[in-house]
């Protein structure tokens, strides 16, 4: 057996083994994951797509405008949480990640794997919410094969950007400040993320229109809008995709730096 422990191990093999661990754990928690993912959009759809129009407070059809935002939210929140929460727990209290940090690969690979698993969970969340929304709200105008590549690209890039952001938040923020993270970072991001209104609509408030561009969620919402409700005005697709690529690289760089600082003393 000793000879075996001397043989080099391919990093890809270790990566897949660690990914398999995360997927095994995620699969066991799938029911909770789906409930957590689906509940919020369903509530939104019930209030904005049914209650408020019934009361005459907002016009019918608003829910269609809102739908891409709801999908974007499910995708991004799942991606952030699936990376940030375990990171905070593992580094802060349980040190469970230690057994992976002792695996024979550069430790950055452990972080990259977490982000990869986060993207997969984000995709599952988006794919789950989409049919749920279709059931409640009726036909989705952009849901066609022609738009599938764009939908897929936005989902993957958005998931990557937000998983990487989760890596940064999970490793760069002290566990005691997790509540603060949600109220100071995540909540404003949702409100100003063009989730409940198209970016073009902000033309009425020009300052806001430019200010919200620092919000990464804007690009995922607009990307979903371009893919799911092409009739509603949205940002140029090229700009959306380029922004998502830049954000992914930026957050990945910041996240890996913060991870390294936590993982090695």
């Amino acid at each position, binding site marked *: 057996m000793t000879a*075996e422990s001397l043989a080099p191990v391919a990093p890809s093999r*270790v990566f897949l083994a660690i990914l398999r661990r995360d997927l095994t754990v995620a699969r066991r928690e799938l029911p909770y994951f789906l409930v957590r993912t689906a509940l919020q959009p369903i509530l939104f759809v019930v209030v904005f797509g049914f209650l408020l129009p019934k009361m005459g407070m907002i016009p019918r059809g608003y829910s269609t405008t809102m739908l891409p935002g709801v999908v974007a939210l499910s995708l991004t929140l799942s991606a952030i949480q699936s990376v940030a929460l375990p990171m905070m727990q593992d580094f802060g209290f349980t040190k469970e990640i230690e057994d992976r940090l002792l695996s024979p690969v550069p430790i950055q690979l452990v972080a990259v794997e977490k982000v990869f698993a986060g993207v997969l969970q984000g995709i599952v969340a988006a794919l789950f919410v989409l049919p749920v929304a279709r059931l409640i709200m009726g036909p989705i105008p952009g849901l066609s094969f022609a738009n599938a590549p764009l939908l897929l690209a936005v989902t993957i890039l958005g998931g990557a950007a937000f998983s990487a952001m989760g890596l940064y938040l999970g490793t760069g923020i002290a566990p005691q400040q997790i509540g603060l993270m949600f109220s100071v970072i995540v909540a404003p991001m949702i409100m100003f993320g063009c989730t409940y209104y198209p970016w073009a609509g902000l033309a009425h408030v020009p300052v806001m229109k430019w200010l919200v561009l620092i919000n990464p969620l804007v690009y995922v919402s607009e990307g979903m809008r371009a893919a799911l409700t092409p009739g509603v005005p949205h940002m140029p697709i090229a700009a959306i995709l380029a922004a998502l690529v830049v954000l992914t690289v930026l957050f990945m760089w910041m996240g890996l730096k913060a991870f390294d600082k936590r993982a090695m003393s």
Partner: protein
Amino acid sequence: MNAIETRSLRKVYPAPAVKKKRGVPAPPAPPSGGIVAIDALDLAVAEGEFFGVLGPNGAGKTTLIGILTTRVRITAGEAVVAGANVTTQPADVRRRIGVVPQRPNPDRSLSVIENLVFHATYFGISRADAHRRGQELLERLGIADKMNAKVDQLSGGQQQRLMIARALSHDPRVVFLDEPTVGLDPQARLSLWEILRELHAQGRTIVMSTHYMEEADQLCGRLAIIDQGKLLALDTPAALKLKAPGDTLVEVTFDGDATVVADAVRAMEGVSNAEARGPLLRVFSKRGGALIPALIDAGEAHGRIVRDIHLSRPSLETLFISLTGRKLT
């Protein structure tokens, strides 16, 4: 060939930042160099040794193990473990070592056997082999009946065994254990000793840190005594005990500062050394217990009343105290 070699190893942690408060004069700046955890440490551990690192809490034991297991960055010097440099080839080091942490940190989302199987696959071992090996290890460590249990259902001692099984799941050449018996009841500690002896008998190099004298004495072939990051002594337990002052240590606690008493006692016949630490007087003497009346008298002559007296025969403990002026635990 040496399993472990360190040369002029040094680790300095950055000093914690001091926050300025308004209206309060700035506190004295911390030493600009930071906190020195390991200082100019040279060690060589031969393959197949059972090597102990002995020292009190805060001596630098955990930092040393952290460096050797590639989890702590070196400030200066170098360390080679199982033929690989911890700074430039950390993945190669990790492939060849097993680590049992100070506090069990099993993967709580997985069952007992899954902890072993997944960990082994992180080292490129196939799942079938990993499963077979995991079962063997659980049997050998006496927790096979917990195979499918959740980790939370294990007792502290059982979790520690699981950590040992995990450290062995990829058949490492060098096994590191950081104070493995802290928090275990005496029975669990003894059975852990048995397990460690068996591992050593199989030809593995074992490096264990501890602050229990008896443990170090019983298990280790060689011992490094460290304090404040420095190597104070390095030898077999037997040789170290010979180096211990050949005197009995008499510790007398007075009701007040013992400095004046120490000065008087040092001049007494048969006293090789005496020193005071607050109300505590430490006297090394061949006369042992026979010296006690004289010590009580010396105290009374300086207006001190005895509160407590303690005798220790020459041991690793008394050696440690004579080297550092501190107790181990």
